[in-house]
């Protein structure tokens, strides 16, 4: 599986660098090795224009400065094709179709922003000089972080929060103070937690084992899921399980949602 991770990494880099053909081949190779790989599927969808309204492409690959929705804003407007025969005029517009006022998509002009040079003389503004020139390794690391960040944003926009989160975690390992990554981390986590928790039902609900206790050992679980499963005794509710687990809320919610999806636990 580590080959698959490397391939995905390579694919992302190629994609972000505008080498669409190479990215396409790489993600297809991933799917040959791991047919259900969600990350590769997300990117192939992206490359094939599944979310063309989200990330405009040019003939040379991705356009620079593609519009990426900011975390906290609703996903960018995806215009649905009008129903056959045209949309009835008296249909009320959906607020989501229009997008909330606060969720406008900002397109940054790559050449835009404050021209520091122009104001430098008047304001006595001077750029800061780094204490030490960044080394080649640091520069390489920064480039990688930028690539991951770009990819994380795109996955977020695609609704692949797990994939986005994985990349964000990678970024934060390399640069723990990365402000943008931290913001995306928060957004990804809260979205995923809400998604997984919605599978659990009311948090005051009491989960129960849906299989015979002697069948538990035939499951394919890791020790963290084993620990959580051991806490399910027909008396504690989901909220208490979150407190008992000692795991981050996201991990607990994910494990419990998976146990429900696998029919191991029922509410």
């Amino acid at each position, binding site marked *: 599986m580590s080959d698959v991770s490397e391939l995905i990494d390579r694919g992302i880099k190629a994609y972000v660098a505008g080498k669409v053909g190479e990215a396409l081949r790489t993600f297809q190779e991933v799917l040959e090795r791991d047919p259900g790989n969600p990350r590769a599927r997300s990117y192939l969808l992206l490359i094939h224009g599944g979310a063309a309204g989200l990330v405009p492409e040019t003939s040379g690959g991705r356009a620079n400065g593609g519009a990426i929705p900011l975390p906290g804003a609703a996903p960018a407007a995806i215009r649905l094709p009008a129903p056959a025969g045209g*949309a009835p005029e*008296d*249909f*009320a517009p959906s*607020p989501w179709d229009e997008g909330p006022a606060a969720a406008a998509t900002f397109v940054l002009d790559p050449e835009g922003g404050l021209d520091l040079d122009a104001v430098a003389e008047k304001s006595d503004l001077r750029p800061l000089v780094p204490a030490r020139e960044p080394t080649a390794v640091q520069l390489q690391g920064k480039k990688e972080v930028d690539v991951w960040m770009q990819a994380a944003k795109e996955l977020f926009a695609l609704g692949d929060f797990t994939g986005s989160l994985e990349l964000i975690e990678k970024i934060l390992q390399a640069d723990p103070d990365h402000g943008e990554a931290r913001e995306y981390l928060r957004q990804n986590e809260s979205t995923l937690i809400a998604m997984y928790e919605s599978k659990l039902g009311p948090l005051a609900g009491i989960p129960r084992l849906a299989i015979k206790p002697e069948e538990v*050992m035939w499951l394919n*679980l890791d020790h963290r899921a084993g*620990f959580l499963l*051991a806490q399910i005794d027909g008396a504690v509710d989901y909220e208490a399980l979150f407190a008992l*687990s000692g795991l981050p809320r996201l991990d607990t919610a994910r494990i419990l949602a998976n146990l429900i999806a696998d029919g191991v636990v029922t509410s």
Partner: protein
Amino acid sequence: MSDQEPVIGIDLGTTNSVVATVRDGVPRVIPNRNGQPLTPSIVAIAKNGKRLVGALAKRQAITNAENTVHAAKRLIGRRWGSKEVEDARKVLPYTLRAGPDGNDVRVELAGRSYSIPEMSAMVLAELKADAEAWFGRPVTKAVITVPAYFNDGQRHATKDAGRIAGLEVLRIINEPTSAALAYGFGKQVERKVVVFDLGGGTFDVSILDIGKSVYDVVGVGGDTYLGGEDFDRRVIDWLTFGFAKENGGIDLRGDKMALQRLRDAAEKGKVELSAVSSAAVHLPFLMGGGEGKPALHLDRQLSREQLEELTKDLVDRCIAVTERTLKDAGVRPAQVGEVILVGGMTRMPRVQRAVKEYFGREPCRGVHPEEVVALGAAIQGHALTAPQAGSEVLLLDVTPQNLGIMVVGGYFQTIIGRNTTVPTSETHLFTTVQDNQTSVRIAVLQGASDRAVDNELLGEFVLEGIRPARRGEVEIEVSFDISADGIVGVSARDVSTGQQQSITVTATSGLTEDEMKRILDEQIDELLEKKQTTREFDLRKQRTQTTLEEIEALRPAVQEALERTRFGKDAVQKAEGVLARVKQAMDARDAAALSEQEESLERTLQLFKGLAGAGRGQGGR
């Protein structure tokens, strides 16, 4: 009886606590809100910030050890720097610090500092809430039990804990006295009784003389670091060793999640073995198997014989302590008329056999070992609030430790010996040690050591104006007086001049009155805040409920509209997500989450209105 305010008896244990009451003349245990008679005396701030008390706190005690406070009873009323606190610091995983005056002990919990009475108060508040749920009305009056060896400071601190929990503590009584009270309830008992109390963390043995409704503790002893947890640890070690042997030396104790499950399973297996001869310990997916390998299981059978072998020395230690205590009190095993077993560990058949072998008689089986102390406290509480002619119970308590003063050379001179029945008074004569000595310092101490420095200082004062004379010529009379409430009065008098000085030793819990006031004020603020949050939630809920009803009323029309076209389906799907989150926030009574969803809910209503209007418009054509 039903109109009278209920009174509860609380056994505030080191590991578990129990609450009981007397209803319709029958003492009974009040189960907690989970239906269990025992509530672990554990408080924690879970990793998600939630405060846990009792069984839930226990179930994460290892995985979140630094924020889980157990065995607070070992620290209550103790001074910072005392041997007991130093011993506790060696074994307790949470952080202890000195209080603001450098004297008492504070616990660091999730970034906040708490006094020990505050920690105990959290357990007491939980028991109070359980009782209120059971009675369906407020409960404020309680009798709380403490070990017979607790000194005045510890008793006072326990009382303060009760006050913080919102309880009026009618009386603090000794645990063995309480057990004997429950044992003697409704009987005419006149004999010497031994209370053999092997709890979760401590072992106490007490000898009582029960006369006509008089309960007199004539001797106490024990080991404050011997209990059920030591038995559990032996089982954990046995399981860990077996697992390591089967799995290439993997030590489960290094993994907190594994250790938590092991501890729970060890305790469960141990309890089972009191009733059956073999117990299965089955822990699937206990530990990660390493890179790419499946998780490892633990599957072992523990027999009663194996458990007895593993814990033989612990049982022997209990008997040795019992032997020493009886010897100290001058009581022979044959003189003991009854042995009352207290504490869950005394259910172990090996413990019962050892007791029987030592005393040469079957221990009493008429009382429930885990409930008897709380039941006794409830009986005492009932007697204090609803006395009936002829049924008064007189509890005679004894001084738990020697009381005396410091004398020349830094030695401790006992004036009132331990196990003396209170109220009592005693006078001793002393002389000056220097020529022309005009003042003398009287340091009042409590403890078992010959060296003054090893004992607890209760207070001190200086007697001045002594007649100048050669050393040894002036006689100073020192008197100790202990009231029935345990208040110690000490006076020193120059016999020849009559010059006198005295002190009243009032026990302190380590909390100053100002601190106590602050804690109680904070609780009032917390209560008000809770009320405010509840009010806020209720208002939001009401508004949300109205919107939800409006949305639900529009649902048929929306469905109809959606059947005609797929336009808007995506939006409705998202709206369903909003509705699910709103309902979740309402179930969890989470005002903040509800507030976060308010705008989305309003948009959902607008969407539904739009779709319904469109559907109706089309339908009309």
